[in-house]
């Protein structure tokens, strides 16, 4: 084979990255690349292109022993495994990648707005404004500790695919999400809250809505996309 043929170099690099170049041909190609900086660039360019396909792969919880083994092999001073996995990923993405201040400000504005129409002085409420990634508010979740009710206000009506349902979750950092049940895309709700749930809401940092099969998550944990999230704020 003429390894200088530009088209062949592209084709081999692409299939090397895809993984369909295998066995002896793969080994041979690797040896060739070791000697050929330009070829390594072509490979890197394909790695960049195709590698991005991995970004959206569904995360799966990794057992702690994997990190322990890695630490041992690298000779790290053994530390407690950091929080890991799908839930931690959701948490980190919320904490690190979103402007929570904006959300909190909007939440307070909404609270003030709602209180104008509530003659009684309302205290001890926890609210969360659920927003899309584009920061469009969808629901306002108000947990009234005094009256032990959770009120779901519709801010903007959402649409949901047939056969799917919106499920509301509260998340405390480091813990698994707790389901607060299904919520409607277009109808406000007013539900009683048990003392146990009230306690949990007090500790929750974030609320989120996932898209689940009709009837709710089959596993008790979010299984579908999580398009709406919001920080829990006490007012």
């Amino acid at each position, binding site marked *: 084979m003429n390894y200088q043929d530009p088209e062949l170099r592209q084709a081999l690099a*692409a299939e090397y990255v895809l*993984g369909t170049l295998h066995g002896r041909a793969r080994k041979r190609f690797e040896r060739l690349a070791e000697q050929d900086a330009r070829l390594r660039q072509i490979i890197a360019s394909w790695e960049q*292109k195709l590698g*991005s396909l991995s*970004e*959206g792969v569904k*995360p799966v919880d990794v057992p702690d022993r994997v990190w322990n083994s890695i630490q041992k092999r690298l000779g790290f001073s053994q530390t407690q495994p950091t929080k890991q996995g799908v839930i931690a*990923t959701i948490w980190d993405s919320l904490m*690190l990648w979103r402007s929570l201040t904006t959300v909190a400000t909007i939440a307070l504005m909404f609270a003030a707005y709602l209180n104008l129409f509530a003659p009684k002085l309302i205290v001890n409420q926890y609210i969360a404004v659920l927003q899309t990634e584009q920061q469009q508010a969808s629901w306002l979740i108000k947990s009234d500790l005094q009256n032990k009710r959770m009120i779901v206000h519709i801010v903007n009506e959402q649409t949901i695919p047939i056969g799917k349902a919106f499920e509301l979750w509260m998340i405390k950092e480091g813990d698994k999400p707790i389901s607060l049940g299904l919520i409607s895309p277009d109808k406000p709700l007013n539900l009683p809250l048990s003392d146990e749930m009230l306690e949990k809401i007090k500790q929750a940092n974030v609320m989120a809505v996932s898209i689940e099969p009709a009837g709710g998550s089959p596993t008790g944990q979010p299984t579908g996309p999580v398009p709406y999230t919001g920080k829990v704020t006490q007012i």
Partner: protein
Amino acid sequence: MSDQLNLQTLLAASARKDEQAFSKLYSLASANLYGVALRILKKEAAAQDALQEAFVQIWHRAVDFHSDKGSPMAWMATIVRYRSLDILRKQKKLVNVEDFDLEQVDTELGPLGKLLESDMAQELWQCLQELNDKQRSVILLAFYEGLTHDELAEHTATALGTVKSWIRRGLQSVKGCLER
């Protein structure tokens, strides 16, 4: 969104042998990367081996990562895929190709998939949509499930040469599309 930036910062700190940063990097990226290994290897023990090997390599090679090499996630996932493919091919066992349905290649994103996606991933998905169904399916099956030409041919009941040309032409079109 600064997710990629955040991973970049952690990779850069790992290159300076900051163990804390590496631990954080692991906690952010491992679940996603484990998902990548698990799809190729199907078996948890093997996928965990691949993940472990890959992270040892990521630690040693973090210094090689530059943002011009694409997204940090794509860079790390490539290392995970290569380790997974090595293990898969060593097993010398044909994957049970019955498990895959060409018409239903699972390209569904995880709960935060969309959030995690880089611009490159979005452009690439658009370009993949321009391929015909067969070209796209064999490329995605090879990428996500680690199938070889032979396995793809067997699975699609298509001549080996045809499968090879679907892949070659498909990849050429993707490259052309991305360069437009």
